[in-house]
């Protein structure tokens, strides 16, 4: 009777101490086999001529199970009961795999049979829908592999392929509780894709293209919401400016506001915005008149302007400008306000020609800004220089559309002076980049605050006293501006090196009008 001594690393009990020493004097017929099962392994000392059935008896006693639950596998072969271990080639130190079948055979059979039955649809489901369990998760990497796990089906897969209750609502409920599903739901990009691919949604988006645009651009969405909040403000501004307008407009501002309240942005609004832009151009003439640098632009523009057809601007593609339209209006109103301020100062007729040419050129050259925002205090800054910036190519007649105003007027489209000034400074930067001489002049102005203050005060009177157009044209001459720059540089150098000499050059400055003459100071 072969003795079976089971030695396990964990269990404290010992086998039958039948006098056989453990390690020494092992009879040659006793072999040590390792039985591996379910993640643990144990060693058994048995004789190699033991029948498998007898071995199974031992194992069933050891593992507390019935013999028919045991299945022994060695080298991929199932061990039959009538074999001996030696017959199967089991030698010392070999590993035998043991599978303990589930006790409830009926359930296990049902489980496996259902698995088999459902395997074909499982395969199909796996192929077509993928599985939400498969989540490629390199740590902290984005969710794009998750999206690829659901290749084409926008709907979340509704079937856990190896689930027993495949069609029951509990299955879906369990699936929803699956953290993978929740992860998918929280994936905003994926959800946006789901929403956009829904047929009803697509239909709605076709009817209202702005919706698709909103979906894709959260920035526009935010701006739109703020615009909606500020509609009242805008209307108020427009109504304030309305009695002061000096330029006729076939479309009243009220109609604009009415159209504005419909964020749907239909073709009517497109047309009205087109007309609005036309009128904006017209209205800009007066503010341009008061601006000394307008003709600077006119000077730059006149040559190319003659070559390009002065067609009235035909705005296109209003749909993506919904959030910008109110800014159009606000600029429009502010320009009208300014026109009322400055019309009294400047003779409009004189510069209208220039500015009309410039505006025409603007429309055809594709300059993005056409708003003549001026500071209401009447100080002619460089706002119309906005016209010069960002030439976007001649094919873009959407110049009159205020494309870049969207970026400039981020956040609150409710135009305040600060906002206009920020836009002005932004446009100024563009201009300065394009014209380094002007930039240098500005730098000098900045570095000499006293001089800049005086210049600012003197400039309007100075310009009014002289022939405006000639002066501006002269300024447009690059060499002339360069000369002025050199003079300024020399003056600054003199001021730093030998301030005592400044009074000697003062007469020159008086003549130039850059220093107040002694009678005025």
């Amino acid at each position, binding site marked *: 009777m072969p003795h079976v001594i089971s030695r396990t690393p964990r269990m404290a009990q010992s086998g039958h101490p039948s006098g056989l020493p453990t390690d020494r004097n092992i009879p040659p017929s006793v072999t040590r086999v390792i039985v*591996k*099962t*379910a*993640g*643990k392994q144990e060693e058994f000392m048995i004789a190699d001529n033991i029948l498998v059935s007898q071995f199974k008896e031992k194992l069933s006693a050891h593992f507390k199970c019935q013999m028919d639950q045991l*299945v022994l*596998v*060695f*080298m*991929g*072969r*199932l061990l039959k009961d009538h074999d001996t271990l030696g017959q199967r080639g089991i030698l010392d130190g070999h*590993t035998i*795999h043991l*599978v*303990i*079948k*589930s006790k409830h055979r009926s359930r*296990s059979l049902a489980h*496996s049979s259902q*698995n*088999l039955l459902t395997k074909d649809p*499982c*395969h199909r489901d*796996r*192929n077509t829908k*993928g*599985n939400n*369990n*498969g*989540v*490629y*998760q*390199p*740590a*902290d990497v984005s969710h794009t*592999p*998750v999206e*690829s*796990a659901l290749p084409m089906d926008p709907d979340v897969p509704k079937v*856990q*392929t*190896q*689930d*027993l*209750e495949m069609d029951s609502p509990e299955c879906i409920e*369990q699936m929803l509780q*699956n953290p993978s599903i929740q992860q998918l739901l929280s994936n905003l990009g994926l959800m946006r894709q789901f929403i956009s691919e829904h047929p009803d949604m697509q239909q709605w988006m076709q009817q209202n293209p702005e919706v698709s645009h909103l979906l894709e651009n959260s920035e526009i969405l935010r701006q739109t919401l703020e615009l909606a909040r500020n509609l009242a403000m805008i209307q108020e501004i427009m109504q304030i400016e309305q009695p002061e307008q000096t330029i006729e407009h076939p479309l009243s501002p009220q109609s604009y506001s009415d159209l504005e309240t419909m964020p749907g942005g239909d073709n009517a609004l497109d047309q009205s915005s087109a007309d609005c832009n036309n009128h904006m151009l017209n209205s800009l003439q007066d503010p341009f008149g008061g601006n000394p640098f307008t003709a600077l632009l006119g000077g730059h523009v006149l040559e190319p302007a003659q070559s390009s057809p002065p067609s009235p601007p035909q705005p296109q593609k209003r749909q993506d400008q919904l959030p910008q339209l109110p800014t159009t209006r606000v600029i429009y109103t502010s320009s009208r306000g300014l026109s009322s301020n400055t019309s009294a100062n400047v003779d409009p007729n004189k510069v209208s020609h220039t500015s009309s040419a410039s505006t025409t050129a603007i429309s055809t050259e594709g300059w993005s800004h056409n708003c003549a925002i001026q500071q209401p205090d009447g100080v002619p800054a460089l706002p119309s220089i906005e016209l010069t910036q960002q030439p976007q190519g001649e094919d873009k007649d959407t110049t009159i559309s205020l494309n870049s105003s969207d970026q400039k007027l981020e956040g609150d489209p409710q135009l305040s002076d600060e906002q206009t000034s920020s836009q002005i400074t932004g446009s100024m930067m563009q201009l300065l980049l394009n014209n380094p001489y002007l930039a240098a002049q500005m730098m000098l102005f900045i570095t000499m605050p006293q001089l800049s203050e005086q210049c600012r005060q003197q400039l309007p009177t100075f310009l009014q006293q002289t022939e405006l157009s000639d002066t501006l044209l002269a300024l447009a001459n690059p060499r002339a501006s360069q000369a002025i720059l050199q003079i300024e540089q020399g003056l600054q150098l003199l001021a730093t090196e030998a301030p005592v000499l400044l009074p000697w050059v003062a007469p020159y400055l008086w003549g130039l009008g850059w220093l107040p003459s002694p009678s005025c100071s």
Partner: protein
Amino acid sequence: MEPPNLYPVKLYVYDLSKGLARRLSPIMLGKQLEGIWHTSIVVHKDEFFFGSGGISSCPPGGTLLGPPDSVVDVGSTEVTEELFLEYLSSLGESLFRSEAYNLFEHNCNTFTNEVAQFLTGRKIPSYITDLPSEILSTPLPTPGPCSFANPDSVSPELGPCPTEILAGLAGSARPFGQALRPLLDSIQIQPPGGSAVGRPNGQS
């Protein structure tokens, strides 16, 4: 007595780096690695693999990795499908739970090795199972003629080349692989496309 059915057992080997490891490993690690191997066992017309989501199965080649880069014939087995699934479920509850996944010590290849031995008594090729230790034991990079610490030797226009940068980065007291260990430990691989095996109600 009818002869027992023999079912072929195949090992599908995927290179997760898609060839990059073979090209970049000499530079990055100082030794030649042929690939970053992910393996799965194919038997009974199903592919079984272990990932961070536990044991999964799919049609052969049905994961997102696509077809395998190489197929190794492991042998054949008498184990029936039913028995095999029982075995897998017991494994999935004991040794190969989803939380047991570790990129270095308890990964897909560990599982494959285990299953291959169960099915056929044979192990999978050693170059696959030795991969983690290979990576972890990468040697210290030796400073070359133009090392990162010697900017003079580097042409001023180009700056340090990537090799030197990597050498400089890896010039810690530990081997390069060990230095990456915390990062690599956090990586979990689960090729999408499989379904759970052996867990009640399919939950992982």
